[in-house]
């Protein structure tokens, strides 16, 4: 099965990192990606720019369709994701526990039949 590991966190904490901490964080993620590759679990993943740079488009009703900011204004914001392959939820949780970030949401990906 495929799962998305959605990374949530406090952007202020991310932004307050100095150069050295940023580098260490990058190294932690490099090691994590290495772990995923060694398990044959790495399908993809990206870091996202801060939520202040987000634009939300609403394609419904006749209200203004384009607004500044993320869809949900919450204390923790989506900061990035990995797409992984895992046998079942237990394996996905095991991999999520090793992800070096404080909050990880594990979401199964819908398997559509091959086009």
């Amino acid at each position, binding site marked *: *099965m495929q*799962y998305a590991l959605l990374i949530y966190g406090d952007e202020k904490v991310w932004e307050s990192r100095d150069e050295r901490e940023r580098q260490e964080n990058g190294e932690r993620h490099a090691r994590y990606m290495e772990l995923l590759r060694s398990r044959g679990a790495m399908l993809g993943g990206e870091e996202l720019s801060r939520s202040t740079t987000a634009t939300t488009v609403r394609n419904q009703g006749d209200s203004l369709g384009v607004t500044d900011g993320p869809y949900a204004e919450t204390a923790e914001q989506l900061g990035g994701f990995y797409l992984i392959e*895992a*046998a*079942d*939820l*237990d394996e*996905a*949780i095991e991999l999520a526990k090793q992800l070096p970030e404080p909050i990880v949401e*594990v979401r*199964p990906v819908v*398997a559509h039949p091959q086009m």
Partner: protein
Amino acid sequence: MSDPGEGSARQAVEQAYRNEWSRLLALLVTRLRRFDLAEDSLQDAFTAAARVWPAEGVPARPAAWLFTSAYRRALDRVRREEADARRLPLLLTEPSEVVEDDDEIPDERLRLLFACCHPALKPEARAALMLRFVAGLTTAEIARLFLVSEPTMAARLTRAKAKMAVAGIPLRKPSAEDLPERVDVVLKVIYLVFTEGYRATAGPELVRPRLAAEAIRLGYLAGELLPGEPRIAALLALMVLQHARRDARTGAAGELVLLTDQDRTRWHADEIARGLALLDVLEAVPMPGEYHLQALIAAEHAKPPPADWTRIALLYAELERRTGSPVVRLNRAVAIAESGSAEAALALLEGLDAPLAGNHLLFAVRAELLSRLGCVDEAVAAFDRALSLARTEPERAHLRRRLDSVNKR
């Protein structure tokens, strides 16, 4: 009038339902990898048995007959549904061994037990799933036990089953590494079912013994499926000892009867003996766990009076050290008061006002201690506070009686 053969065939169907339903369902779920299909075809198989057995006689191997019948019906349904795109994905499971001798019904309930108690499910959903798929209760029965409507319970079960399939919760015994943590969840679910039956938080009924009895049944089953797990035996001892007092917990008018005032002749002596025997077997465990400590406390209360309150206070102190629970501290204070020191007990209550702000028991205990120490005005104020917080009628009646007796002095 039915002839005796017909009557005994009907009995055989009922007996098979009681003894084999959950085992057959577990086997069907792991083979078919779908809950709905397993439930429906097993239901059909029992309906067929009720029709066929009285006419043609009870088969030599009733469980195998039911499994074969249910499995065949399930495959028919699968063929008919082939094109249904709305179907949930199949549950994930390891391949089962193919059983050639159909007399041999393998027990797959352990896989179902762990799937139903997966940490990724909500606690109340876990409890409902356990009662449905491990204990074999109907949705209507579970709804009644949890005091919700049948559609509400059915929706809760459907959501939980969908989550299991879509999220990929596996039907599998957890890895050795995960096992201790997962057994903890199983124990929590069983104890949740038990406490829900033992102490309703609101309403006229203080005990729902049927639910508590189901929890004990689940405990025995878990012990059977996971032999050599001392924590399960400890939980069982705790539940059996508490449940043995059920008939004495409420008086004729449904009012709460405190432990010290209970009519001990209404305790089930055979069950207390069974609970104590379970604890005896655990004697060898060096570090008692939380359920074990609670069971040891329940055992002290089950012994003939006078209770050894000093030992009970020590057990609560150890339990408090483990859990840091304010409720445990409250109980420890009661034990210390009973062993002779109301002042020391009152001092222990300090700092509990914030964590137990809405808990009537804190104020009831404080009121009793103040009244013992002769502080009548403060005691009355504390009883009033307890009365404003108590949610069940029997408990409120008890508090009013206590308040009256303090006022009269």
